[in-house]
């Protein structure tokens, strides 16, 4: 790791000022991507500004048909929140399936979403549930937020304050974990909105990161049953290929995971 200076953020104004004034700054939340990158000398921010204690980023509340989750909520907080469990049980169980216990007590939803790792869990939920990302500058619809592998619509220095999830009629998540990293090789989040619309978001498998599988959405909107998915053929041409899964294998898994997520409405199916 290169030399770096750690600043514990206290307020939104203070961290924005630090970010504007300090050389080579980077915001940090749980640090589960940034710290390993720094340890491998692949990232070299001179100043780390920790967002986790900012009051604007804290708290999980249910507000009418919206579930609002502060960006600094760690995965264990989301997994253990009665509001989340009552509103979107699949989201709580998804959070409980991330990494291991240490990861879940350090990693945050804001950090995960801002990083947009192609195999991270949260982007699938955010996209499928049609959530809104509330930043210190604006509100961004999930559909506009994820712009490619490790890429988002966030501007330099823009801070995610919270994520607002519309409470769906039901949602389910299915994931096959990479035996080494325990990240998703392929995972699918299937949500049915209160208006009957269906959204399917897939993580771990796409070569451009999380994506919506529109064919499946349409088929499931017609008939919400696993058979609707089984008739489809995801395109291997848009899948990731690496040591742990070829594009063809991932394409096959996308179908399996989506069907399982349909079966697992109100819950998750993790293997």
């Amino acid at each position, binding site marked *: 790791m290169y030399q770096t200076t750690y600043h514990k953020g206290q307020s939104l104004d203070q961290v924005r000022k630090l970010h504007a004034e300090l050389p080579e700054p980077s915001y940090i939340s749980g640090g589960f991507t940034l710290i390993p990158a720094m340890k491998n000398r692949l990232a070299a921010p001179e100043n780390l500004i920790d967002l986790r204690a900012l009051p604007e980023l804290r708290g999980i509340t249910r507000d009418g048909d919206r579930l609002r989750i502060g960006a600094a909520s760690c995965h264990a907080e989301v997994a253990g929140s009665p509001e989340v469990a009552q509103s979107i049980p699949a989201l709580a169980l998804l959070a409980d399936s991330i990494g291991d216990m240490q990861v879940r007590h350090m990693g945050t939803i804001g950090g995960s979403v801002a990083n947009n790792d192609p195999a991270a869990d949260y982007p699938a939920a955010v996209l499928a549930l049609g959530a809104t990302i509330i930043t210190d500058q604006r509100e961004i619809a999930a559909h506009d937020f994820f712009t490619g592998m490790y890429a988002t619509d966030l501007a330099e220095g823009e801070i995610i304050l919270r994520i607002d999830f519309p409470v769906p009629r039901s949602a389910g998540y299915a994931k*096959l974990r990479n035996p080494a990293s325990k990240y998703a090789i392929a995972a699918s989040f299937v949500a049915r909105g209160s208006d009957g619309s269906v959204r399917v978001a897939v993580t771990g498998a796409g070569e451009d990161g999380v994506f919506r599988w529109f064919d499946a959405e349409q088929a499931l909107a017609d008939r919400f049953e696993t058979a609707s998915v089984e008739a489809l053929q995801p395109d291997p041409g848009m899948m990731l290929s690496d040591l*742990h899964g070829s594009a063809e294998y991932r394409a096959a*898994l996308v179908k399996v995971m989506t069907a399982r997520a349909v079966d697992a409405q109100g819950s998750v199916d993790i293997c």
Partner: protein
Amino acid sequence: MNAHPDGGRSGNALGAGDIPQMNWDQTGPEMKMVRDALFRHVGKPVRRKEDHRLLTGKGRFTDDFLLEGQTYAAIVRSEHPHARIISISADAALAAPGVLEVLTGADMVQDGIGPLAHNPLPSTKFDMKLCAPGGGIPFVGEHHALAIDKVRHVGEAVAVVVAETPGQAADAAELVEVEYEALPHVVDSAQAAAQGAPVIWDEVPGNVFVESSFGDWDATERAFATAAHTVEADFHVSRVTAVTIEPRAAVAQYDPETGRYELFAGSGGAVKHKGELARCFGIDANRIRVHSYDVGGNFGARNRVYPEFALVMWAARRTGRPVKFTATRSEAFLTDYQGRDLRTKVALALDADGKFLAMRADNLSNVGAFCVSLSPLSKGAGLITGSYDIPVAALRARAVFTNTMCTQAYRSSGRPEVTYAIERLVELAARKLGVDPLELRRKNLVHPEQMPYRNAVGQYYDSGEYEQNMDRALELFDWDGFAARKDEASQRGKLLGRGFANYVESSIGSPKERAEIEVFDDGRIEVVIGTQPSGQGHETSFAQVVADMLQVPVERVFIIIGDTDVVSVGGGSHSGRSMRHAGTVMAMASAELLALARGHAAEMLETAADELAYADGVFHQRGTNRSVSLQDLAARLADPLRVVTDNEMHTPVFPNGAAICEVEIDPNTFHVAITRYVSVDDVGRCINPMIVHGQTHGGIAQGVGQAMWELCAIDHDSGQPIAGSFMDYGMPRTDNMPFFISEIAEVISPTNPLGVKAGGEGGTTPALATVTLAVLDALAGMGVEDIAMPLTPQAVWQAVQDAANTQAKK
């Protein structure tokens, strides 16, 4: 008080001929002691004496040592698999903050430091001897601590930077400019051995530097020519790495007044490292003191000297300051000595009734860029016929250089490879003949009445009841209940499969060991021994042996290891040798100590030595109430009550057993779950069953890990390793392992006084075969006949796809 029992003692006779002495002299004093021992401690699950220290953070691991004025080394490593070094510029690094020294291969040559003295050829009396193609001593390549003219693998050390802090050293290492001329590379053993491959060492134009033949080739050919059935197969036993919890580390200081180096480096044997480093530096061994105390995992990877050990010693002398190196996890994945990587082509000839007639094997070991050890090839060579009575066999054993990290004897060196080959071959034969694979195995097993059994390549199996192991394993596994379990799994949409393997392995290892036993006036008994535990519980199991021999409480016995100024001789811990060698020499030393003590006691009590009875640590004069304890003697004698005993013991032992794995496969995701695992292991006499079971469990996890997840994946085009972290290198974990059912079979070995064979590695040896066979069994209905390790979901999916495509073409 040195005892050199070579003369007359049959167990360690070094006579002519190749037949090992099977029966330890039954008349020796240590045998009487073993026979008389009440075994109050031996055979009992005595709690580990070392655990309190380790669990309360009082372990002494290498990185725990902070020497005054300590500086830090960072290594500049090659990014190329194969390249010529054109120039190295250290100017910018030398100018960086805190930098004390930057050293290169040229500096090393100038300072007269030679290559690491690995001594890779197995050379004990009963090792399979390997030679160069056409005969003679193989060229093994000079493994210098820093590359001199060219680099031969990614990660090879090119320069070392020494600075005041680890961060400064790492920052400056990036400033060392190395200009390379890239050369064509080859990483795969078969490609390296093929015509026209890039040449790694000019001295070995074809890269194959070992080629030996064993067995009876003519008889084997004749048997194959007339056999009713033959089967053959090609296997590649993949490359893995040890992934020790504690990364390798070293810290050294140099005293210019005495000219002595002091090295703290956890390893598998400090004494061996001292000797090898002395050769590397061209100095007398007494100028080096090596400390190796607690070691966070070895598995063979830490038995050999690492370049960084020599570098910190040299840099300490150059800078006049202590120098420390601690590998990062990335460095560990890249440059820890790796394991396996054997290609094997095997064939079996059978008669019409399924009796094995002959076996052929062609083994090719990928040693990497330098030859650090030929133990895996040699060990495997001796065991190609496995647990089976195969009258004749022919084996070609070759080793080849490639542009990869060096391989070394890793957890059960060489044995899982050949066990995998023979067990898969037997299974293929059963299928070809349409017979029950278990019945085929039974028909061909070596039977107890054949012991000692000479196998077709000349190894003598000492003892064992192979079919009993098999029966016991089948019972523990509930083999007959499999059909019902399979039905139940199938109702849940899962495919169940089971894989069985017999195994026999050899424990040879360095033949010499010394024990020093001293009794102190506070009753404490110290045993100095030259083995090196890395989790095996020597401090407990060795103490159990000495406590029983001397009839004292185990709490009073302390095992001293790891400082070469205290431990003068010792073979280290490898090849499952420690309990057998240490147990034997400790029993001998105990006998000597009691003989010595009896003489002193007789003098003190003014009686004849044979008037004394010994029990519970006390000599009693018969018919009187006069007595003197060992502790009293130690307190009253002018000289220490101490013996030093040496032993040299060549005869190998052959631990053996049977294991069975059950897997459940999800036919949609192709995820494999291990649902049941049984292991029956004949370890000879078991000193501490709790420790042996624990070692077996770890051994199983290590074998299953290789079968299921672990792989040092390398991109053939670029020569770059691509599984350099836990993100890509899958490991056995608590959440992917079943509870193991392990049982210890104790068939006492006749080769040593305690009857010890070896434990732990028996968990690893059959596991590659059992897991693979279980997966193939589960997939049998889908037409899958072969699958390469690791059996990841991707690999299983691919195998099923390939089988479907093949069937579609038909």
